[in-house]
């Protein structure tokens, strides 16, 4: 293919290209009004994981997904004033539209038995709140002696209480959660209130996401603009890279929305990532055009495009591979979606830099600008003289030292790799001091955990055998150090049997159970424990430890029990967040290894094919592989864990970071073909492509570093680590790669390197 002819065609159709881009941009911008956020973690769990599927099904069937919790914390719950406050919170939220039921210390039904018969009343009489020490002692005893209240209403130390509410089907989760926060906040209670549970968490995360997006994006935009201004010192140098990035963002988000996707915790960062990545291609195109204009201003655009088109396309392809590689092995669907749409955005950015940027430049180029460009030559050499020239000298003088330094760094990093920790615990996603993190902490410390565990029983829920097995399972679970308490319909039946018959156990006769059911029928609490058809029931529990080994240990502990006790008439299955965490943790390693292997193989092949030399492909991948080893080393040595966001870093870094090597290799090959002198080719490459690389790495890193200010901890590390790997891979491309080229070619053409000899 004649590249020059092709580039000339681009300029011929410049108006068509500009109008087409404008129309598409207007169309996709219009779609963005439909942007909505889905911060529900459960919905992102994959359908092919049986634990996740069962967890989702139980959440939907028994209403766990729509349960919110308010934690009220103070020095002593057992005070009239505090109970009054619990009552006002209970009253306030019961009347919020979208809330179907509320249960708290002041409205729980209490069925008590004795010689006199049974008493059906409230745990606390909301109209005559207890006020004497004796009354409070009775209340304390009632709460702590009842299995159903232990760890679910008041903490053992009496300093915290829970107000649990359920949302109606189809309620607007965000609106309800916000009303709960606003209305309870407006009560101005002296006690501390925390909010937790799926609806509250999803709303909170979605708020953080919105704040990240609206706060960080303009900041990233401004920062990249300043860097571009300092680098190019021209309006087009600032506007064009940012314009292409913004258009690429609009197109990819527009398509995402047309296809019915929502913003997730991960895809929320697509705009910032595309701003950083998408501007890079235009930077390279502009850099080449500016450089050629100095010599031949009329043909500069088409000539530059002919030079730079292949490396830019190649760079984009490798970045796309980096993002696409998440499809293989990623556990969470939101990561797959993120990979696809960021890849799409990168593709758009590449297309725009090749078609749209030259078209625009050709339209707006004037004699006046050319004059300005010529005068710029002097200013532009600042970077060359102060950094690139000394670097060039260093490379030629001490290639072996540089190689040794890299080798030592890589060896050290390999040691660090073995110390990498993994973390899938949601608590760690929030900053220290963040209310959600504190709430999780209180749940673990005072209410026996925050991670839900469900044991599903399939069978006749009124059969003594099934209910007895539920009691047995509950007792077995409570012997695990990480399970504080369990609740089920069986506990409730045993409790009522105690009130009626004086024994706290499941009656042997089914008839008795059916009749005890009469007292429970229609109670709101029933739908949390048994299905409408009474053919399924669950044990609800919470898991305490965030430690992955403890979760695995518990999974093994339960597996043997379930195997022995599950029968045809009483099938037992277990699931819960700890089980999902185990799979997610395992998938982190698979996902990491899978995505990075795929990315490396494809990148080497594609680079090799396009540059028509496999050795070029391998050379190009050396700096980035070195940078990735160092990245993992740093993660291991500094204790930054592998989590759902940092697991993305290596592939993204590989995809973007290899661009630097591609530019170096292709520039070298190109010049080497013309001059047939490796030394001149290397020098030329460092002085010209080196500059674009430095500008690029600074602007891309700045974009990613903005994520340090994100509200979500994994994204902070994601931003930092990408910026770090960009630095690593660019340094690799500017030092390690040239040194390898120098050493390889010095052997072959010693005279080029020592012309004097």
């Amino acid at each position: 293919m004649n590249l020059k002819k092709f580039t000339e065609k681009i300029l011929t159709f410049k108006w068509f290209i500009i109008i087409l881009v404008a129309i598409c941009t207007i169309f996709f911008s219009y779609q963005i009004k439909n942007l909505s956020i889905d911060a529900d973690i459960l919905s992102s769990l994959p359908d092919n994981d049986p634990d996740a599927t069962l967890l989702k099904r139980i959440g939907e069937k028994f209403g766990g997904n729509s349960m919110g919790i308010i934690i009220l914390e103070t020095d002593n719950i057992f005070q009239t004033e505090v109970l009054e406050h619990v009552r006002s919170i209970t009253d306030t939220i019961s009347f919020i539209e979208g809330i179907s039921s509320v249960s708290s210390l002041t409205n729980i039904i209490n069925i008590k038995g004795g010689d006199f018969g049974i008493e059906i009343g409230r745990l606390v009489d909301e109209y005559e709140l207890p006020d004497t020490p004796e009354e409070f002692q009775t209340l304390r005893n009632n709460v702590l002696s009842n299995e159903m209240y232990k760890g679910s209403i008041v903490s053992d130390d009496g300093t915290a209480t829970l107000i649990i509410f359920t949302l109606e089907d189809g309620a607007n989760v965000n609106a309800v959660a916000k009303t709960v926060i606003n209305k309870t906040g407006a009560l101005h209670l002296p006690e501390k209130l925390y909010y937790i549970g799926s609806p509250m968490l999803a709303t909170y995360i979605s708020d953080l996401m919105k704040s990240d997006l609206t706060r960080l994006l303009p900041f990233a935009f401004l920062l990249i603009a300043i860097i571009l201004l300092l680098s190019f010192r021209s309006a087009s140098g600032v506007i064009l890279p940012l314009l292409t990035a913004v258009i690429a963002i609009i197109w990819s988000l527009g398509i995402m929305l047309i296809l019915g996707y929502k913003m997730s915790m991960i895809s929320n960062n697509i705009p910032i990532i595309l701003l950083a990545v998408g501007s890079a291609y235009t930077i390279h195109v502009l850099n080449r055009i500016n450089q050629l204009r100095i010599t031949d201003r009329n043909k500069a655009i088409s000539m530059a495009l002919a030079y730079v088109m292949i490396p830019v396309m190649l760079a984009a392809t490798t970045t796309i591979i980096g993002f696409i590689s998440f499809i293989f092995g990623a556990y969470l669907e939101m990561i797959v979606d993120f990979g696809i749409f960021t890849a799409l955005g990168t593709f758009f950015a590449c297309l725009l830099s090749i078609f749209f940027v030259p078209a625009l430049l050709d339209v707006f180029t004037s004699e006046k600008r050319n004059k300005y460009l010529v005068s710029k030559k002097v200013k532009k050499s600042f970077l060359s003289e102060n950094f690139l020239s000394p670097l060039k000298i260093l490379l030629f003088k001490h290639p072996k030292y540089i190689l040794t330094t890299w080798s030592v760094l890589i060896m050290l990093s390999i040691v660090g790799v073995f110390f990498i920790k993994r973390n899938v615990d949601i608590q760690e996603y929030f900053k220290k001091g963040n209310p959600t993190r504190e709430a999780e902490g209180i749940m673990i410390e005072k209410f026996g955990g925050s991670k839900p565990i469900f044991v599903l029983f399939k069978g006749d829920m009124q059969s003594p055998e099934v209910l007895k097995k539920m009691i047995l399972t509950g007792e077995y679970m409570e012997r695990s150090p990480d399970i504080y308490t369990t609740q089920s319909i069986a506990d409730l039946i045993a409790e009522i049997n105690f009130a009626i018959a004086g024994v706290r156990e499941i009656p042997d006769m089914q008839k008795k159970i059916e009749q005890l059911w009469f007292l429970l029928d229609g109670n709101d609490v029933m739908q949390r424990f048994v299905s409408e058809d009474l053919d399924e029931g669950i044990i609800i529990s919470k898991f305490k430890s965030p430690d992955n080994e403890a979760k695995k240990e518990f999974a093994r502990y339960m597996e043997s029990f379930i195997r022995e006790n599950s029968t045809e008439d009483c099938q037992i299955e277990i699931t819960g967040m700890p089980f999902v965490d185990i799979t997610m943790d395992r998938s982190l390693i698979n996902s990491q290894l899978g995505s990075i292997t795929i990315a490396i193989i494809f990148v080497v092949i594609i680079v090799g094919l396009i540059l028509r030399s496999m050795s070029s492909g391998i050379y190009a991948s050396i700096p980035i592989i070195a940078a990735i080893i160092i990245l993992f080393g740093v993660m291991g040595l500094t204790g930054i864990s592998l989590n759902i966001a940092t697991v993305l870093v290596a592939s993204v870094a590989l995809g973007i970071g290899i661009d630097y090597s591609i530019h170096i290799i292709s520039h070298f090959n190109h010049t080497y073909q013309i001059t047939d002198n490796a030394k001149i080719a290397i020098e030329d490459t460092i002085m010209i492509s080196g500059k674009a690389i430095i500008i690029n790495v600074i602007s891309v890193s700045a974009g990613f570093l903005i994520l340090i200010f994100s509200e979500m901890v994994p994204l902070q590390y994601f931003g930092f680590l990408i910026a770090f790997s960009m630095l690593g891979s660019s340094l690799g491309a500017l030092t390690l790669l040239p040194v390898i080229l120098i050493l390889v070619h010095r052997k072959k053409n010693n005279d080029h390197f020592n012309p004097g000899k």
Partner: protein
Amino acid sequence: MKRFQLTSIILIFLVFGVKSTTAQNADSLLQYMDNLMSAPKDKQAIVKIILTKKSGKEKVREAMMKQKGKDKKLYRYTKPESQAGISTLSLPGDVMWLYMPAFGKPTKISLLTKSQSFTGTDFSYEDMESGSYSERYTPALLESSDPENYVLELIPISKKSKYSKIVLYLNKTHNYPVKMEYYNNRGIYFKVATYKYAKQGKYWYAEEVLMTNLKKAHSTGILMTDIKFDQGLSDDEFRVENLKQ
């Protein structure tokens, strides 16, 4: 000046006079309704209770109901099969006895709170209380353009009530309730009962009552069939010992 005084006196008389007439009217209207409801000496009927969930799923219970005077009421459940034989006996002074045949002995139930649902229905224990409306609520007549019904506002006397008010639509001709709208203690309209009255012999009775919880979209229908009045039910029928039959 004199004329002004006279006018004022007439005005004051008119205002207070009218007001006291209205209050009296409201009181007596509610009293009429109570009288109509408690007119039979005793009654017995087959009661069908239909619970309908938001999903449209229905649950049906059936019981034989016997009532003597205002506050002796016996329900003996016949359906569903699993709950057949369960009986509840309400006696004066908020005493309730529950008999479950599988356990073989009656259990006394003390109701410390009346706001919760009555055995899974949309009626609360407060709604099922036997005491007359006049004893439990202060009525006021509301202005209404409804040609067939009086509209009364009932304010609970007990501070423990979960209702802030009930708006009662009372048939002008026969003094039976047509509809009751329940407002919770935040003043939100959340529950409605509609009544279909029929006459048998000299007595009017609620042949059908439908209570709907608007928030939960859950409803309970009560249908009475085979109703018999003034059968001369003996007090023995309402003895705890006789629950076990």
